[in-house]
């Protein structure tokens, strides 16, 4: 479809897409008389379209999108697993309830949240979880603030450094910075793991904590995790677990048992909640031992058989979200957990790791690809480098991504992590059938083949999509950048200038 913008739909007709209920008796008796200085001078430039036009427009846009339901999306570190349809039904548990209504009237919701708090704690090996955080990054911020408040409580004003692995997700340093920390990067060693010597060197009385993912972004398990934990704890720094990669070990080993003090979980990664085209997700922030008292409030507690959503840990950092976090999505994760049961959940890490290593076996001997760092088994994901291919043919990781799109697949994450050149970061998850993994490997094989024979064909991809490659200069240049139709309109009317 070449679908015009909804704002471009002919707005000359008096059309409406939905009727607003009207109480004539009330309207006849109430005059709308606003303070004149408050009155809107001119109604906003919204479209005037019928229900059919709205539906047809957005259906066509949806057909020009790509989700897990349309095809394989092995986006590394995103855990794009299948989202079972039953989740949508269970989310109806919460849809019509107001967050401030009396606890007595929402006992069913609170029971679900209460169960989730403790089930997530069990699966991460922590003591308690708060569901305040609407997504992963908010969970990280909460974790950083918990660490901050902990050290402040101990009067450690000079604890101003946060350690972060150089291969970490960008959110880690960004969250640390939002918490007011200086970021100290820990280099990855030749094995692709945290360099323990470097860690020991930089860990000192200024160290507030260490934000770590395990398995890391290369898909490798930090096998010296117990030693790492010891190093940090020796100065009473806190070990923070970035849960983005939990899917590779779920049911095999728990962060709490590795020595982590704080864990955030992305329910939209590990626990099957759909990603919503970018969101909403849902998060949990969990803690062990004394850190439990720093969790964001409120939590659900049970007293005399009744649930209330008003427990405030004694040293809580406060509220992260306006109400309770994304409870609608917590309900979706709840459906996922019930549908697998502890037996099924215990298989998740194993099956996702099996899928990754199966795919590695199919790809590792391809000319043009290299597998940087250790050749140990990967967990949830694997990072290949297309540097050899690029050197040989000029075809980059980005070009492979575009060529995969033409073959009906979504691309892997590219150019991440930063410590791998021409990175292709592939996370297959446990929900994709073996046949899909086979055809994905075959597609990459064919692309590389083609790259060596006729690189231009790959460089010209994608060709089967609605648009060809994007002009990033027009997209971002101050004289052409167009973040809204309003800017387009005002610019064409000469009413705004370059973005200064």
């Amino acid at each position, binding site marked *: 479809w070449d679908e015009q913008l909804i704002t471009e739909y002919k707005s000359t007709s008096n059309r409406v897409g939905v009727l607003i209920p009207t109480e004539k008796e009330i309207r006849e008796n109430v005059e709308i008389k606003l303070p004149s200085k408050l009155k809107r001078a001119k109604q906003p430039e919204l479209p005037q379209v019928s229900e059919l036009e709205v539906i047809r427009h957005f259906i066509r846009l949806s057909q*020009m999108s790509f989700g897990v339901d349309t095809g394989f999306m092995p986006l590394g570190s995103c855990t794009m697993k299948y989202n079972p349809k039953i989740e949508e039904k269970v989310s109806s548990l919460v849809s019509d309830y107001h967050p401030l209504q009396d606890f007595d009237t929402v006992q069913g919701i609170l029971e679900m949240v209460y169960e989730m708090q403790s089930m997530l704690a069990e699966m991460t090996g922590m003591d308690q979880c708060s569901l305040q955080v609407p997504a992963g990054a908010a969970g990280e911020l909460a974790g950083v603030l918990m660490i901050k408040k902990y050290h402040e409580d101990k009067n450690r004003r000079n604890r101003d450094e946060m350690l972060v692995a150089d291969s970490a997700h960008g959110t880690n340093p960004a969250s640390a910075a939002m918490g007011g920390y200086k970021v100290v990067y820990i280099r990855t060693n030749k094995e692709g793991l945290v360099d323990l010597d470097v860690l020991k060197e930089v860990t000192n009385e200024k160290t507030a904590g260490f934000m770590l993912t395990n398995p890391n972004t290369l898909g490798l398990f930090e096998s010296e995790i117990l030693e790492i934990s010891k190093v940090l704890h020796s100065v009473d720094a806190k070990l923070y677990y970035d849960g983005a990669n939990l899917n590779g070990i779920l049911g095999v080993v728990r962060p709490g048992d590795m020595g982590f003090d704080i864990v955030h979980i992305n329910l939209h990664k590990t626990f099957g909640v759909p990603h919503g*085209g*970018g969101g909403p997700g849902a998060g949990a922030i969990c803690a062990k031992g004394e850190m439990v008292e720093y969790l964001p409030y409120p939590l659900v507690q049970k007293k005399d058989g009744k649930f209330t959503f008003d427990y405030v840990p004694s040293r809580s950092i406060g509220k992260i979200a306006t109400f309770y*976090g994304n409870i609608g999505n917590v309900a979706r994760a709840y459906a996922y957990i019930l549908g697998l049961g502890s037996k099924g959940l215990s298989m998740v890490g194993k099956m996702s790791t099996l899928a990754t290593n199966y795919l590695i076996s199919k790809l590792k001997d391809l000319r043009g690809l290299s597998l940087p760092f250790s050749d140990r088994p990967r967990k949830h994901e694997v990072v290949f480098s297309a540097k050899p291919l690029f050197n040989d043919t000029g075809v980059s990781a980005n070009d492979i991504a575009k060529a995969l799109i033409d073959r009906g697949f979504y691309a892997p994450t590219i150019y991440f992590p930063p410590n791998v050149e021409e990175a292709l970061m592939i996370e297959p998850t446990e929900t994709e059938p073996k046949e899909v993994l086979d055809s994905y490997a075959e597609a990459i094989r064919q692309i590389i083949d083609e790259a060596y024979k006729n690189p231009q064909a790959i460089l010209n991809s994608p060709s089967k999509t609605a648009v*060809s490659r994007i002009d990033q200069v027009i997209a971002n240049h101050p004289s052409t950048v*167009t*973040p809204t139709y309003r800017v387009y309109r005002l610019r064409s009317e000469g009413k705004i200038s370059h973005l200064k």
Partner: protein
Amino acid sequence: MEMHPWLPNLASIKEMLEVIGVNDIYDLFSDVPNEILLKGDFDLPYKEPLSEYEITLRLKELKSKNMKLLTPPFMGGGECPHYVPEAVKFIISRSEFYTSYTPYQPEITQGLLQALFEYQSLIAELFELEVVNASLYDWGSALAEAVMMANRINKKTSIAIPANINPYHKEVLKTWVYGKGLKIIEIPYDKYSGELDYEKAKEIISSSNDISAIYIQQPNYYGVFEEEIETITDYAKKVGAISIMGVNPLSLGLIKPPGEYEIDIAVSDGQELGLPLNYGGPLVGIMATRWDGQLVRQMPGRIVGLTKDSNGNKAFTLILQTREQFARREKATSNITTNEALMAIANAVFLSLLGKHGLKAMAEEIYARSHYTKQKLESIKGVTSAYQGDFFEEFALRFPIDYSLIHSHLLKRGILGGIQIGKSEALFCVTEVHTKKMIDTLISEIKEVIESVEAS
């Protein structure tokens, strides 16, 4: 486990291990210290997988523990009940949208990008501000992000906020700025009108040279319109602070949008634009700014832009990504990655359905119904208005008896009353989902309980 609908390869384990060249799945975990390897399954209340049908039975059981109300809640406080058109639900149930993720590969996700661009564009028209991001979590966190934006721009560290803003937003703000050590100064409000005390505001703002941002909420927590927004923008300019305005999006069918005040940053929540209450989440944080590079470059979150493809055709892509965490790491404008994109699409569908005419009709209907309700309630002996300013959707009343008596009486009748904001004060919310019949029932029930308590 032999088979499971969500684990397709259970029967292929052996075959796949053979290709890998190992004997056992645990061989893939030989790098995990043996002492911490889990022995056995998790200890959860659900051991065996439940079938879909059994999950629905559990759902039914939980639902039966929630109370069934007779009418939509008369409760607001940051979230008001509204009717969500079926078309909105239908579109966000399209799984090409909802099982997708941030559109990193623009060529194959033009539809999703266009939908988000349309969200940004429709909000821009509603607010009369030029730049809108593709959503933040909610109003509270959007306010916090706006305040941190201001701090990055002018490096000052005090934030002036009215005492009559939403208290939950205030709590979120306090948490978020704690790491940066920003200082929050509260401006009192006029207890008669319910509006901000503008004289005090001028005083407080003028007396500091460290004011980074000044915030104002329209209408404020008590539903009362703030009539002197210009005072805030003027004083903000005067002291080199960033002006931030929070706004009820539906009220913009009647009242001046942020853009007409030269506000720097506007924040809001799109819940009123096509989202159910969701027990407080997901919501969708809205943020918009003026056409000013200083603001735009410090804006948090994703932004979708209109551009061209290599053939010169219209195309969409994520823009200004150098602001973001994956590129800039600790220098990013925020840590946000996952946002509330699907809810933003719901907003876009909702605003498209309403259009120019529907938005105005909706705002008028809400205005009329809430005024009708307040007038009728005030006609009950002893019930008075808590604040005198004109209002939209929400309003506070003072009762002659303890409000908790009224609230529990209403609940017994299946009606969820307002939010208690004082011993005998409560904040009510009335929208297009409250029919005259429901409103009249509320009124007569309140009348009944007041009379019966006073009689006894």
